[in-house]
C-alpha cells in the first residue's frame, strides 16, 4: 500500500510541474513584430546549384534594425539563428514550424548572440563558418530580438514571408573517418576468425575423443 501512496504523490508532483509551465506557453510567433530587423545572408560561394560544405564554407551575415520597428525600446539582445526552409521540413515532424514559440522546432541552430546597443544605428555584419553538425538541407537566416526577460518580441529574416527566396543549400559532413573504418574492419574480422578457431578446435578435440 505504501507503494501506491508514493505513486500517487509522484503523479501529483508531475501535475504541479506541468501546470507551472503553463504561464510561458502562450507566446506566439504571430504576435512578434515582422521585419523589425533587416537581415541578409550571403554565402561565400554563390551560383546555380551550389551546395555549401558544412565546416568549410562561410556565410556573411548582416543585420540592422529597421527604421519602421516599433518595439525597438524593448530590445535587449539580438539572437541570430539558422532555420530550415520548407523543403527540408517535409516528412520530418521534428523540424515542424509551430506558432507556439516554445514548441517551434524550425530554427534549432544558433549562429550568434549580440547584446543590443540602441546607440548603434548602422548595420552589424559578421562571418559565420557553417558548423560541422549542421545537417544536409535548405536554410535561411533569421534574427530574433529579445527583451530583458529573454522573450522574443520581434524578428527579421533573410528570406521572404513564404520562405522561397534567397535560400541556400548545405551538405553535411559525412562523419566517416578512415581510422574508424579500418578499426571497424579489424574488429569484425577478429570476431569471425575467433569463432571459427573455437569451432574447428572443438570439432578436432571431439574427433580425438572418439578415436580413443
Amino acid at each position, binding site marked *: 500500500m505504501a507503494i501506491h501512496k508514493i505513486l500517487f504523490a509522484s503523479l501529483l508532483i508531475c501535475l504541479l510541474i506541468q501546470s507551472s509551465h503553463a504561464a510561458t506557453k502562450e507566446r506566439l510567433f504571430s504576435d512578434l513584430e515582422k521585419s523589425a530587423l533587416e537581415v541578409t545572408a550571403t554565402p561565400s560561394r554563390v551560383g546555380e546549384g551550389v551546395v555549401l560544405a558544412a565546416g568549410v564554407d562561410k556565410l556573411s551575415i548582416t543585420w540592422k534594425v529597421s527604421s519602421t520597428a516599433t518595439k525597438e525600446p524593448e530590445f535587449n539582445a539580438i539572437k541570430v539563428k539558422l532555420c530550415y526552409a520548407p523543403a527540408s521540413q517535409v516528412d520530418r515532424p521534428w523540424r515542424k514550424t509551430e506558432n507556439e514559440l*516554445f514548441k517551434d522546432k524550425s530554427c534549432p541552430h544558433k549562429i550568434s548572440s549580440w547584446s543590443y546597443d540602441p546607440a548603434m544605428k548602422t548595420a552589424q555584419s559578421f562571418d559565420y563558418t557553417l558548423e560541422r553538425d549542421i545537417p544536409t538541407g535548405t536554410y535561411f537566416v533569421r534574427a530574433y530580438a529579445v527583451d530583458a526577460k529573454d522573450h522574443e518580441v520581434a524578428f527579421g529574416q533573410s528570406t521572404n514571408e513564404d520562405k522561397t527566396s534567397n535560400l541556400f543549400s548545405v551538405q553535411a559532413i559525412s562523419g566517416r573517418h578512415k581510422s574508424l573504418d579500418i578499426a571497424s574492419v579489424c574488429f*569484425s574480422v577478429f570476431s569471425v576468425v575467433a569463432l571459427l578457431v573455437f569451432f574447428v578446435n572443438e570439432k578436432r578435440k571431439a574427433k580425438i575423443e572418439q578415436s580413443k
Partner: protein
Amino acid sequence: MAPNHSNENGSIGSSLHGVTAREQIFSFSVEDAPWSQAIRSDDPTAKFALPVDSEHRAKVFKPLSFAKPHMRAFHLGWISFFTCFISTFAAAPLVPVIRDNLDLTKTDIGNAGVASVSGAIFSRLAMGAVCDLLGARYGTAFSLMLSAPAVFSMSFVADAGSYLAVRFMIGFCLATFVSCQYWTSVMFTGKIIGLVNGCAGGWGDMGGGVTQLLMPMVFHVIKLTGATPFTAWRFAFFIPGFLQIIMGVLVLTLGQDLPDGNLSTLQKSGQVSKDKFSKVFWFAVKNYRTWILFVLYGFSMGVELTINNVISGYFYDRFNLTLHTAGIVAASFGMANFFARPFGGYASDVSARLFGMRGRLWTLWILQTVGALFCIWLGRASSLPIAILAMMLFSVGTQAACGALFGVAPFVSRRSLGLISGLTGAGGNFGSGVTQLVFFSSSRFSTAEGLSLMGVVAVVCTIPVAFIHFPQWGSMFLRPSQHEERSKEEHYYGGEWTEEEKSLGLHEGSIKFAENSRSERGRKAVLADIPTPETGSPAHV
C-alpha cells in the same frame, strides 16, 4: 517390475536428445539393473553444486550463484541476450543525431525500425535448428560473433538505404533469445522452468531499456574527447560491438551445452543421439499449438519491441519532453522487465502447482489481455502522469505475459523444443514488424491512435489461447481427456516418434520427460497414485 513411487514428485526427467549412457532404463525396471545406484539422487548430486533430477537438470534456482554448469549457463545466456538487445536498439536513442547526419525522413526511420526486428524472424527460426543440432553454446556464440561485424559497420553508413540494411543485419542477433531459453530449458527442471525462463528472458529484454540510457551516455563521453556529433555516434556503436565479442568468447570458454558436458563430446561418445532436422521441423510445424503461441507472442513480445522503437519519440512529441526525459521514460518501460517477466514465469509456475497446465493457460490469457487493455488506455491518455501510469501498467502486463508464455512452450513438444522456441520467438518479431508497419510507419494514424488500435488488436489476438488443448491436461474450458491412452503424458510425447524409432529406443528421452511432466496435472498429480504406464514404452528386458 514394481512401479517406482519414490520418483513421483517430478524428480526424474529426461534430457532433450536422449540421456547419458547410464540411463537407458526406466524407473520401473531400476531394481534389476546393476548400475541402478548411479541414478539415485545422492550420487550424481555429488558432482553438481545444486540439487539435480535424474536428468541432471537443476531443481533449484540460485540467481546469485555462478556454479558450473547450471547457474553459469543461466548467467551466460541472459547476459548474451541482454547484449544483443543493447545492440539491436542502440540506434533508437541516437536517432535525433543519426537523422541529421544521414538526412532521414520519418518514413526512413519507420522502415529502419521495422527492419531492425524483421531480421530476427528468420534467424530465430534457424537458431532453433542450430541449437537442436549444435548445442546452445554455439548457437549463442554464432549469433553474437557473426553479428558483431554488422554493429561495427555502422561506421560506414552514409544514407537511408545503408542505415536500413545495417539495422536489419544487426537485428539477426536477437536469435540469442532462442538459444538462451533453450539453454535454460535443458539446465533446469520443468517445475521451475517458468521462473527461470522468465528471469533469463526478462533480464535480457532489459537491454532494450538500458540501451536508451547507455548509448546517449557513451555518445556524450566520445563528444567530450573532441569528436563531432556525426563521428561520435558511429564510434559509440563500437561499445555494443565489443560487448558482443567479449560475451561470445566467454560463452565458448566458460559455458557447457548440457549438464553432463558439451554436445559434440557427448554425441561423439555415443551418449547423446543426433536427431534428423527434417523430423524435428515436421513435428514442430505439424503441432497447431506452435502457431497459436506464434500469434500470441507476436502480440506480447511484438508489442514490446514496437514500443521500444516508438515510445521515446511519442513522449517527446506528444508531451514535449526533452530528449533526455523522453529517454528516461523509454528506459523505464524496458527496465520493468527486470521483475515483470520473471513474475509472469513465477505466476505460471504457481498456477501450474495448483491447477496444472489449465492454470498456466489462464494466467497467460489474463496477463496478456490486461496488458493490452492498458495499451489502449495509454493511447487515449492526454495528460503526462496518466500516460506514464498507463505505460507502466501496460509494461508489467505485457512483459509478464511473455514470461507466462514460456512457462507453456516447453511442454508443447519434447522432440522439437528448440525449433518451437525459435518459431515462437520469430512470432514475436513478426508481430513487431507488422504492428510497426501498420500503425506507426505512415501518417494514417497518429502515434496515439496507433497505440490504442494496437491494444485492441492485441486483445483479439490473445483469444486463441483458449484453443490450446492438451489431451492429458485439458485446456482453458475443457477438462483433460478421459480416454485410457490419450490421457497419459507418454502418449502425447511418444506420439512424436514413429514405431520404428521407438523400437530403436530413440524416444526414451521423451518418455522420461513425460513422466516428469506429470506435475502439470496440478494438485491432483500429487494426490493420485499414478503408476508408470507399461504400454507407453517398448519391452526393454
